[in-house]
């Protein structure tokens, strides 16, 4: 493949890809996302390939990233028509292919409502999908993540072309600011302001970084995006680099996900081959390269200053950010870091404009949000809804409610650094600021459902047990405060609660939150704080009423 030298060459090449594709030719997309892969979708995909080979060129088989409906994997989607088959086994393959060629549907493999028995054949009829707005993850079933041509076929890199050929860097920045894109990694900080800080920093050498270090418990949406559609994130990054004036980017991700690594490596190589990375991108005069970097297996690697230390080759220890990393980051150069999902939002903002983007979402939180739905929920999976969607829609309409006919007790957001709110707040909208005020900040977007049997003391203990092992141990309040809280909570769950424990917990939570060096320590007591706010009686019940010991 010779390098594409201009926007015109890209569009010609894209037209060529589309011309070779017959939209009427059936395509069977087999999900190879983490959950489906775990249910051996690879064998299903191999069976499809073998069966299709017998028929010559009548049908296309595509192995794709996560479709979203993890609960019912292995997932298969047949186009045209977006016919969804669930829990597909190798034995079902011949029947699906035969039906597809005849334009028929295999009724026994389509969605069936567990209560009414009503069937749903097409994706837009399946309850799990029909309440979603899948702007980011919707392309996943249409793309083989190893094939850049699949991304080009759905309009990929058109936003980059638009930015490079019709907009100045300032205009790109302006569009992102107007779109009020807020960081999806947890803080909800306006991405445009962050970009502007790095752009305006005096140093000439600047870096942009994709934080793909998803480590929050119960969060698996960034992995679904980055593994399933790596070029979308890369396109966002290149556009951001152009706006900011960065010459180099880093994709920082986990070392322990071989498929993700393979897809990202391949995407970077293909993008360089096609000329989306390197010197004089599409003849625009803009140079940009991107390097892949891995963590060393500790959660705090995802903290921005620790991540930058790690890229420099040091142990991932957070630095105090009295001077922001957007001004002084990697090797003391201005470094703009955004999360996977934040970058994934950039191409559509450039393509469709800030006005379109701000028409989606709530007043202060725009666009859609990817949510990982898990816990005691009927339908676990990766979900995408407009900001402002009531939690009820997420939990009941999409999630199908609580598993095993139990009642909902609490909704937990944000993993080990998030918070739990009681079931009666179910009508709260999904909104950065609103959820923070309730004490359950969205975080990166891991939503955990808890049923009536959940022990809220045990949940706080469990989450702290995770974080204690993930702290770096540099600063005292985090290193010492967390294990002390864990010790008290462990005692409480074992019936060894003591008078004074609640006061000790409150003091430890307050000081760890106020005095820790980085966000990991500062937010580590948040689940506990939310539980003492909403579920305090459960904690009080673990303390014996009278005992002299304090």
């Amino acid at each position, binding site marked *: 493949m010779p390098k594409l030298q201009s926007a015109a060459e890209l569009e010609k090449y894209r037209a060529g890809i589309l011309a070779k594709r017959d939209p009427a030719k059936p395509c069977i997309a087999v999900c190879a996302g983490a959950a489906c892969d775990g249910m051996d979708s690879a064998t299903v995909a191999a069976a499809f390939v073998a069966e299709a080979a017998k028929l010559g060129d009548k049908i296309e088989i595509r192995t794709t990233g996560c479709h979203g409906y993890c609960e019912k994997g292995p997932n298969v989607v047949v186009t045209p028509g977006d016919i969804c088959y669930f829990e597909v086994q190798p034995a079902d393959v011949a029947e699906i292919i035969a039906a597809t060629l005849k334009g028929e549907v295999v009724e026994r493999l389509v969605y069936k409502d567990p209560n009414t028995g009503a069937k749903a054949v097409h994706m837009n009829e399946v309850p799990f999908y029909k309440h979603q707005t899948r702007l980011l993850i919707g392309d996943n079933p249409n793309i083989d993540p190893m094939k850049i041509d699949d991304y080009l076929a759905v309009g990929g890199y058109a936003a980059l072309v638009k930015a490079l050929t019709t907009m100045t860097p300032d205009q790109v920045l302006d569009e992102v600011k107007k779109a009020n894109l807020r960081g999806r990694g947890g803080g909800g900080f306006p991405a445009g302001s962050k970009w502007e800080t790095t752009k305006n920093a005096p140093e000439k050498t600047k870096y942009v970084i994709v934080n793909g270090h998803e480590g929050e418990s119960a969060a698996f949406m960034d992995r679904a995006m980055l593994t399933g559609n790596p070029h979308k994130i890369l396109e966002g990054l290149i556009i951001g680099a152009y706006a900011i004036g960065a010459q180099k980017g880093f994709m920082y991700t986990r070392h322990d996900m071989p498929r993700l690594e393979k897809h990202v490596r391949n995407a970077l190589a293909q993008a360089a081959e096609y000329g989306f990375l390197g010197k004089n991108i599409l003849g625009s005069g803009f140079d940009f390269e991107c390097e892949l970097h891995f963590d060393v297996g*500790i959660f*705090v690697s995802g903290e921005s200053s620790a991540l930058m230390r790690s890229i420099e080759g040091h142990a991932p220890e957070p630095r*105090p950010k*009295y*001077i922001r990393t957007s001004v002084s980051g990697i090797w003391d150069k201005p470094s703009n870091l955004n999360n996977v999902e934040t970058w994934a939002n950039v191409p559509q903002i450039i393509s469709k404009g800030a006005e379109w983007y701000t028409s989606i979402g709530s007043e202060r939180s725009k666009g859609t949000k990817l949510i990982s739905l898990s816990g005691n929920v009927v339908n676990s999976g990766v979900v995408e809804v407009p900001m402002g969607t009531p939690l009820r829609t997420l939990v009941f309409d999409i999630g199908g409610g609580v598993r095993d006919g139990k009642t909902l007790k609490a909704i937990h957001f944000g993993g080990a650094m998030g918070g739990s709110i009681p079931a009666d707040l179910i009508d709260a909208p999904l909104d950065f600021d609103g959820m923070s005020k309730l004490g359950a900040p969205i975080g990166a977007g891991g939503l955990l459902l808890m049923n009536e049997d959940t022990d809220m003391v045990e949940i706080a203990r469990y989450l702290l047990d995770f974080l*204690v*092992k*993930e*702290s*770096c*141990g*540099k*600063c*005292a*309040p*985090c*290193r*010492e*405060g*967390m*294990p*002390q809280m864990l*010790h008290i909570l462990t005692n409480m769950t074992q019936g060894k609660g003591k008078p004074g424990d609640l006061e*000790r917990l409150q*003091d*430890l939570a*307050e*000081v760890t939150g*106020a*005095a*820790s*060096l980085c966000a990991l320590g500062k937010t580590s007591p948040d689940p506990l704080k939310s539980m003492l706010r909403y579920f305090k009686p459960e904690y009080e019940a673990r303390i014996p009423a009278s005992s002299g010991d304090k």
Partner: protein
Amino acid sequence: MSEIALKIDDKDIKVPAGTTVLEAAQQAGIYIPTLCHHEKLEAFGGCRLCIVEVESRGWTSYVVSCLYPVAKDIIVRTRSEKVDKIRKVIVEELMSHAPDAPELVKLAEVYGADRNRFERKESFCVVCGLCVRYCDEVKHLNAVGFIENGAERQISFIPEVAKNVCWECQECFALCPTSYAQAAYLLAEALAFPGHRKVAAARAAQKPNKSRVIPIAAVPAGN
């Protein structure tokens, strides 16, 4: 360099830009407690005891003064109810490791810390990192380092390096607020290169004037 005017505990102070709040306070004779700080070492921000309240344009925040650079017109309060509480709880946490360390005992008196408030921990180390950083930044030897993460973090002498350099130096032992550094060294010696003391004694005999934290007696005759 330009001068920055700020207020620390109602005292008007002028210091060059780039000065930290801790340095500014020290220059003005205002005491802020520290544990992991040492003037020869890069500021670390690990113990968090030097935390202070900073008011800037109406916003109050809590920052560690050893790292926070002075800024124009900020108002620093080195003590407040919240600052004192933070220091009290941190001292209580550290006392779970080293309840009798003199610096902690003194701080406990000031901030009303209860040495028995939290579960005792088995190590006497408060992980201030003075030994590790001194060995790295001043001595450039790296004979002692951190190992493990989070609550498990501890100092550890690296036998291959320590064997050759520690008896000759010993400077970190005197820095240690809990006397744990030398214990850790001796444990490493016992485990990895036992009897090294004899070699050290012979070497010391050749340099009789060098003072040491652990005096090296000559090996008794007939041994």
